[in-house]
């Protein structure tokens, strides 16, 4: 089972960085915050954080039967996804080049996918129905 501590180790800096960026953009929107360097660096950190979380989830692929890990990961991913959504909303108003906006939106989609996967994987009704279907096939 993936412990909360393991997940905290996996993505803490990225979570804090993104929350700070989202807050700054919302209350003091400044163009310099979204230089290509900021966006590309953030994108790389985002990819790393997602890969770490998915890898952590795959470690418990055969032992965690109740979906607790998915629920815990889902809560963390939701915080990051929501901060990305705030950033996307904030930069819509800013004169940020379209290719940079697309990159931020792409990261938002990736996090949203992870939230969706965690929501599906941790739902007891869905898990029961899937097991039931597999047994009848």
């Amino acid at each position: 089972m993936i412990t909360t501590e393991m997940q905290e180790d996996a993505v803490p800096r990225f979570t804090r960085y993104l929350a700070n960026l989202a807050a700054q953009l919302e209350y003091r929107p400044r163009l310099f915050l979204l230089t290509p360097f900021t966006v590309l660096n953030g994108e790389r950190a985002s990819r790393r954080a997602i890969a770490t979380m998915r890898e952590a989830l795959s470690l418990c692929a055969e032992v965690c039967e109740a979906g607790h890990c998915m629920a815990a990961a889902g809560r963390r991913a939701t915080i990051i996804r929501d901060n990305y959504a705030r950033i996307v909303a904030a930069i819509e108003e800013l004169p940020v080049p379209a290719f940079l906006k697309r990159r931020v939106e792409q990261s938002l989609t990736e996090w949203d996918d992870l939230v969706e996967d965690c929501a599906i994987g941790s739902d007891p009704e869905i898990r029961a129905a899937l097991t039931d279907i597999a047994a009848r096939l």
Partner: protein
Amino acid sequence: MPCAIRRFASFERHLKNTLKKYPNSADAVEKEIASLAGAPERGFVYPGFGNLQVRKFRIALRAYRLSASTGLRLIFLYLPDKALVAPLIIYKKGTIAAEHQVKAMLLNALREILEELGD
């Protein structure tokens, strides 16, 4: 040895509805589904199902210039012991923060499949 693909009526309905908006990609999507027979271990695997594998696979709609991340999502069952793949649901990646709708849609589809399978 390639796996058998079991396609449920519920899945066919979802596929038809999804492809209504993207008719030019129908053949490409069918090819992707058929390709699961030879390569079922694709996409994200949901943890905690033991031997049974529940996977999500992303499909790009190139005819509409939609990448895999904004394209379709296919959730399927893979039973390695029985060499069987069963597509469960296919849908277009929609708005952000719609996980509750996706969950409800999947649960409905699973109930329909269970009805179809009977006791």
